[in-house]
């Protein structure tokens, strides 16, 4: 194989960068699962909405990129909150299977609305990260991946700080662990649900806008990203926050390594082969206690 | 000589660092009504879960009807003739009462798909016979009039009786009842005593029962095993157990407090 150590390093950094995006998606799945015991198949569409709103803010409204990023995150977060209030909360006592299908209904509706607003054409996002490769010795690094890596790691750290240092974050964790006890302690568990839905959606949106300058922006872009984020969450152990991060990074790395070392044809299959492998060998994931304790 | 239908020797069950069953030995005589009592968290329900194969044991040997069941799965053990009820009800909630019992009755069916695709005239007759048996059992526990109702709509006490009927449907030699009187009012509990006695007299089924209602236990059981912290601390006939200071202490904490003396009186009754 004609691959040297420097290429390998480059592939690794690219993989970890994509892995961080998967981690953001996996965190979205995890946070909403912890709060509502729900697999939210509309998570991929939050990713898409992040990219499309980001494009509108950055190009049409000429926001600076950091502001566009935050604005997209906030707008999509609000959408997440609205979904929780209008669909998830009224359906709280419905069979879980119905709820899962409801998230798919949301996904279909959002995608259709996005199609009406932004059209079916793939749009390109201006190159905000700059396209001059950075040379460090013999290693050639694309600035886009470095920026993606940097910003997503920042968001992951912020999230960790939120969960461990703030009262609100602690309250959210408490309500995820034992809803009734949290309720009795005076925590507004319903607000925690809304917040969880908003944070999940916002994280998805950040992932979407971060990769928008690298790929094209289109209304179908969330489907595969959503499923890969889901695979990452399962790999890490569904419901575990450190697991989601680890799962995402491992997935991104494995995907990039497999694509460059073996064949890029089945690049997208790597995530799902890992998913099946995990279920066969370690069904509770790397860091999870018990995955998939839900039924129809 | 009377046979021991259930024999546990040195059974250990650990959950992580917690020892839920500590070297438990137990002999249940065939044809007896045997009670297990003990304070909350003493391992009573765990002992049922281990015996019936729901949890694998960490050590020890369990024999049912002279057959080693230590490594068997719940459905295999049920097939040998051991049935149980649950402290936290596990009925098939959306099904009718009679369907719940029918599932118990069909427990030795070989579920091969070809059997059910084939047209077979004997099948309707078989179904009819099953229905009759199910109705008999519902009558036996006294909820025949509810047979077409959905299980989850029954009042709590009747749900408990349905669990018993369903367990009896599997035609067991030994039935394990986990707090069957919990949530029943005194009249219902009195009727339950009669039903449990009938299970032994009429159906010739050995009964192993966990119960908190002391009056009920003293009325029913021929032998009582007392558990504390997963270990057996006393065993014997009811009158002996109710006077055993070790039992009183384990059960009631410090001997001599006002609350305990009252409880002790209750125990003696």
């Amino acid at each position: 194989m004609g691959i040297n150590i420097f290429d390998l390093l480059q592939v690794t950094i690219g993989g970890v960068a994509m892995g961080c995006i998967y981690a953001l998606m996996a965190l979205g799945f995890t946070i909403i699962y912890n709060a509502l015991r729900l697999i939210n198949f509309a998570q991929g569409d939050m990713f898409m909405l992040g990219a499309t709103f980001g494009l509108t803010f950055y190009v049409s409204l000429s926001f600076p990129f950091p502001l566009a990023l935050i604005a997209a995150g906030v707008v999509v977060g609000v959408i997440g909150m609205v979904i929780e209030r209008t669909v998830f909360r009224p359906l709280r006592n419905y069979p879980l299977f119905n709820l899962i299908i409801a998230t798919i209904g949301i996904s279909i509706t959002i995608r259709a609305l996005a199609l009406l607003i932004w059209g079916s054409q793939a749009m390109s996002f201006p190159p905000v990260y700059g396209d001059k490769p950075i040379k460090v010795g013999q290693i050639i690094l694309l600035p886009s991946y470095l920026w993606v890596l940097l910003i997503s790691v920042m968001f992951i750290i912020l999230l960790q700080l939120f969960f461990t240092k703030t009262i609100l974050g602690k309250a959210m964790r408490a309500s995820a662990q034992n809803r009734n006890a949290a309720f009795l302690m005076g925590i507004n568990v319903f607000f925690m649900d809304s917040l969880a839905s908003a944070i999940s959606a916002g994280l998805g949106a950040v992932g979407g806008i971060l990769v928008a300058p690298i790929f094209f922006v289109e209304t179908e872009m969330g489907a595969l990203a959503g499923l890969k984020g889901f695979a990452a969450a399962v790999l890490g152990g569904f419901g575990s926050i450190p697991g989601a991060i680890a799962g995402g990074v491992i997935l991104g790395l494995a995907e990039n390594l497999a694509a460059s070392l073996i064949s890029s044809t089945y690049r997208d299959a790597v995530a799902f082969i890992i998913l099946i492998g995990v279920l066969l060998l370690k069904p509770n994931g790397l860091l999870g206690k018990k995955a998939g304790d839900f039924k129809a | 000589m009377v046979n021991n239908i259930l024999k546990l020797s040195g059974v250990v069950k650990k959950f992580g660092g917690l020892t839920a069953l500590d070297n438990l030995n137990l002999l249940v005589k065939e044809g007896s009504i045997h009670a297990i009592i003990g304070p909350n968290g003493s391992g009573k329900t765990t002992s049922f879960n281990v015996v019936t194969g729901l949890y694998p044991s960490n050590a020890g040997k369990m024999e049912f009807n002279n057959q080693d069941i230590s490594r068997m799965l719940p459905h295999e053990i049920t097939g040998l003739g051991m049935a149980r009820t649950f402290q936290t009800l596990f009925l098939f909630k959306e099904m009718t009462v009679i369907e719940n019992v029918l599932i118990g009755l069909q427990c030795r069916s070989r579920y091969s798909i070809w059997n059910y695709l084939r047209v077979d005239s004997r099948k309707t007759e078989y179904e009819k016979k099953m229905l009759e048996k199910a109705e008999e059992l519902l009558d036996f526990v006294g909820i025949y009039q509810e047979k077409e109702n959905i299980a989850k709509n029954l009042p709590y006490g009747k749900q408990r009786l349905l669990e018993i009927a369903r367990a009896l449907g599997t035609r067991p030699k030994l039935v394990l009842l986990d707090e069957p009187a919990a949530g029943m009012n005194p009249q219902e509990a009195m009727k339950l005593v009669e039903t449990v006695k009938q299970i032994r007299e009429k159906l010739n089924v050995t009964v192993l029962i966990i119960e908190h209602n002391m009056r009920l236990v003293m009325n029913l059981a021929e032998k009582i095993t007392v558990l504390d912290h997963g270990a057996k601390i006393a065993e014997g006939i009811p009158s002996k157990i109710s006077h055993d200071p070790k039992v009183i202490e384990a059960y009631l904490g410090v001997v001599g407090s006002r609350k305990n003396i009252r409880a002790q009186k209750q125990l003696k009754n």
Partner: protein
Amino acid sequence: MKILLNKVKQHQVVLIFIFLLFTPFIVTNIYYLHLLNISLIMIILAIGLNLLTGYAGQISIGHAAFYGIGAYTSAILTIRLGISFWLALPLSGITAAFVGYLVGRPTLKLKGAYLAIASIGIGEITQLVMTNWTSFTGGALGIKGVKSPDFLGVSLDSDVRYFYLLVIIAFLCFFLTSRIINSELGRAFRAIKEEEVAAQFMGIDIARLKVMVFVVSTFLAGIAGSLFAHLEGYVSPYGFGFNQSIGFLIMILAGGLGYKSGPIIGVIILTFAREFFRFFNEYQLVIYGVLLISIIVFMPSGISGFFDKLMKRLKKREVSKHGKQHSEA
């Protein structure tokens, strides 16, 4: 009595069958007849999926993959190996069922929705293999020239002729699965759905029965796939992906999980509803999504469940009315 009721209904089923025989004379628009044919194929799959999800409570989010495996198996067997359709049809079912066994065996042994998760993965992998293994599957273009089957020298090459084949097979599937549903086995499946722990203590080997029902449902999906390939005359990766898997789940949920009529009603209503929504042009998907959420909110047990409950309530009211008259007299 549920058991007796099912027997009365058999007369109605015969009537429906006779009605269906005349359908091609009523539905003369070839496009709608084609849509009806597609619906019949999906009904075969949905019947299996309803057995799995509606009765046994196991979720598969990858059934389109088994549908696709059936379609490709049939296409490859008949074109490359020149095997007759009548042999390829069961072989497609068996191939899909075999893959189903390989997936179901390890994942259904565990408690929890591992099958749901694994089936997503299998669905995506199958899709990628179909698209990328060009030498075997024809890649994105798929395989063209799948022939219509012959029956006693008559080629079933028109939608009208194919309709009769589909009606017969769909009825056969309906009857055979109904036999299972009405039997002890069906009751055991429902017990697993309701309360897995208790089901074990009723002597049910839950792992074995779950694998069994999954294999049956993937077999039916494979059969449906084969029929689809020979109706359309080609196979391609489109229509066997995640969205289609979800589409099947939506159909059985909208029709009514755990109702025998559920898959039939769900497939027909959703297929023709989507056709109707075409009039709304670019808004059609929005309406479809909103309709879906509304069905879940307002009819949580699906259309069949909704009417079943309505009928029961009416009957109860009638009984109580009679009771009143009785007491007045």
